[in-house]
């Protein structure tokens, strides 16, 4: 009797272990097979060819450094100096960087004994250590040079265009113009552009020194010049971040205000009509299922691009989410408190106010504040689609593929913005409903 019982138990136990082993082996195997499958579906082997390593290098080096262009127009012979080659960063008339010298012959010292000379009649001499002197003559649209046949890989040359890359800087020559790029670490003109009197002044001399601009005080002038910096557009960036936070705030709070009364309609305890309850729930499911992306696309047709559209997209989607969460919270309220309040002779509205609301407010607030943080991230993304806020500035900066230091700046700002909102919502939650711990 016991023997058969034992063997039966052993048999079931063996079966169970076998099944567990099968699951323990099977599920990782399925996941692994899926990942292998994806490896080929996403064409990861071909990624190496598609990936543009040059882009990555430009991105990595540009995001923390800047370059100054020294350009000679070969038709007019005019020489211009500009940070990043932009008009906004051009040196004012009569000024030039201190590593450029000479009048007839312009000598550009790139550092490390790399020297470029702009000679009259569109001739150029380039001295690179360990390489014979390079001489180039530009005539019309073509170039003649003394470069040998077999070139090292840091020189690319044809009779139309010559490019030389040295560790200190880059030189490109075409028939129309000769250009030298000198690289420097750091974000250029971050504080003041070249036309501002405060450029190149130390912090001490701005704060305590002589008045630099006779018309205004140093601090006010410096702040205003920084705020209106044309290169970095601090004012626009601040507005854009404000817009993004505004979208998140208005969207989240608006959704919460809309969702609260609707949640009462969807909660079993407060809404006696089955049909009304079910239809409210379907509305929640619908607006949530349509998703912020489609709402954005639809709303942008009606309201045009801008922060309001993003706000409404967040508002509508989150009304569905909040409605669902709130109605679940309302169904879990404790009946005893409501009975207690109603035993004092309170009318139904007072029962809601004093019996229900105090119970659900902590749950609701915690959810709202959590969504405030997560919607800041959504607002960045939605902003990139509708055209508002820091998301738009980021996409624009990336699409122009030129100012990677600006992209880096925006990314840092976005990360700080989200971390700030995370901290802020946690702080507010602690203030309003007591901290979690």
């Amino acid at each position: 009797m016991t023997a058969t019982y034992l063997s039966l138990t052993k048999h079931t136990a063996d079966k169970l272990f076998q099944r567990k082993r099968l699951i323990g082996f099977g599920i990782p195997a399925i996941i692994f097979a899926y990942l292998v499958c994806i490896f080929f579906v996403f064409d990861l082997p071909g990624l190496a060819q598609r990936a543009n390593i040059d882009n990555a290098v430009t991105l990595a080096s540009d995001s923390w450094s800047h370059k100054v262009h020294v350009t000679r127009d070969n038709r007019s012979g005019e020489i211009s100096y500009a940070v990043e080659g932009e008009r906004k960063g051009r040196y004012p008339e009569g000024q030039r960087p201190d590593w450029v010298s000479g009048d007839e012959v312009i000598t550009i010292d790139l550092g490390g004994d790399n020297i470029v000379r702009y000679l009259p009649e569109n001739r150029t001499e380039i001295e690179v250590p360990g390489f014979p002197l390079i001489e180039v003559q530009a005539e019309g649209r073509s170039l003649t040079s003394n470069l040998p046949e077999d070139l090292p890989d840091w020189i690319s040359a044809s009779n139309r265009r010559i490019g030389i890359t040295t560790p200190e800087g880059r030189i490109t020559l075409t028939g129309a113009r000769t250009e030298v790029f000198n690289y420097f670490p750091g974000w250029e003109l971050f504080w003041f552009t070249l036309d501002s009197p405060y450029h190149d002044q130390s912090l001490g001399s701005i704060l305590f020194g002589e008045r630099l601009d006779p018309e205004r005080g140093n601090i006010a002038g410096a702040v205003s010049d920084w705020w209106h910096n044309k290169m970095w557009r601090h004012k626009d960036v601040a507005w854009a971040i404000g817009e993004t936070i505004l979208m998140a705030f208005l969207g989240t709070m608006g959704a919460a205000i809309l969702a609260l009364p609707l949640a009462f309609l969807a909660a079993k305890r407060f809404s006696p009509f089955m049909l009304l309850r079910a239809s409210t729930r379907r509305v929640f499911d619908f607006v949530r299922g349509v998703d912020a992306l489609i709402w954005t696309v639809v709303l942008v047709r009606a309201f045009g691009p801008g922060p309001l559209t993003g706000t409404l997209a967040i508002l509508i989607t989150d009304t569905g989410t909040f409605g669902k969460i709130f109605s679940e919270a309302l169904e879990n309220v404790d009946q005893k408190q409501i009975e207690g309040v109603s035993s004092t002779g309170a009318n139904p509205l007072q029962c809601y106010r004093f019996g229900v609301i105090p119970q659900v407010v902590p749950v609701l607030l915690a959810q709202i504040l959590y969504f405030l943080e997560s919607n800041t991230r959504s607002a960045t993304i939605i902003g990139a689609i509708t055209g508002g806020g820091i998301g738009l500035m980021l996409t624009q900066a990336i699409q122009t593929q030129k100012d990677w230091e600006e992209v880096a700046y925006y990314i840092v700002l976005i990360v700080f913005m989200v971390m700030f909102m995370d901290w802020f919502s946690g702080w507010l939650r602690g203030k309003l409903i007591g901290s979690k711990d």
Partner: protein
Amino acid sequence: MADISAGGAPQSVGNIQSSYKAQVQRRRLYGGLTILIFVVLMVSGFNIADDRNAGGFWEGLHQIGHYPADVLSEAWEKRADLPGLIAKSFPALVETINIAAVSTLIGLVGGIFLSLLGTRGLGKWPRLIPLFRRISDIMRAVPEIVIALVLIFVLGGGPVPAMIAIAFHTAGALGKMFSEVAENADLKPVEGLASTGATWSQRMLLGVLPQVAPNYISYSLLRFEINIRASAILGFVGAGGIGYELRNAMAWGPGRFDEAAAIFILLFGTIVFFDQVSSRYRNRLTEGQGQ
């Protein structure tokens, strides 16, 4: 209130009543002020948003229905083509779901490591716990679009940038949620395993993970649902999948609205489907825990 009455000296009822009334009044005042500030913020914020928008709110309000109506009427006219169009966009949908699934899996693994290394009592290197917490905070704070756009520039368009971007964010987000769960894990099995000389990875694999697995899986399912939405949106900015198809269909404008409608239907159906499936499984997982 309690400490007033327990103050010792007997107080007249009138005293208590008046101080209670004063307290209630003060609380009402603060509550009213908070609501007032909130309303002012909402109204002025709305006005700013309205000002900076290309079209105004009140002019736009009655136009909301126009675009959906155009799309729907055109789709209804060409309703015979709709199944074909849905079938045509289906591969793109599969790509979107694949992006979400793979990035959730990668994020899950990353999140497990971040959470175990960043939880008090479990971390392999107790001194580095704050570091792992900061790492997961930062990973969580990076919106997917930032990484996706940069990677699209380097790697070219397609599913891989979106996958990496979403996985990065998911690892951070799950890392935080997981570590909240792991904090409540019972440490006795871990101690028992440690006494047998188990290594850190054995302790985690056999002592902690079985305890937290239901919660981890439940959070991952929720995350998968969120990631489907995210991968659809990232497609819209150039990273493959159904979002990309949607942008192309929209760029055609009238005449191709049936294509847009087909994509809308697919996307809506997918989101609702996964929403239902994941919430059913999550309920089962969390209920199973109580038993």
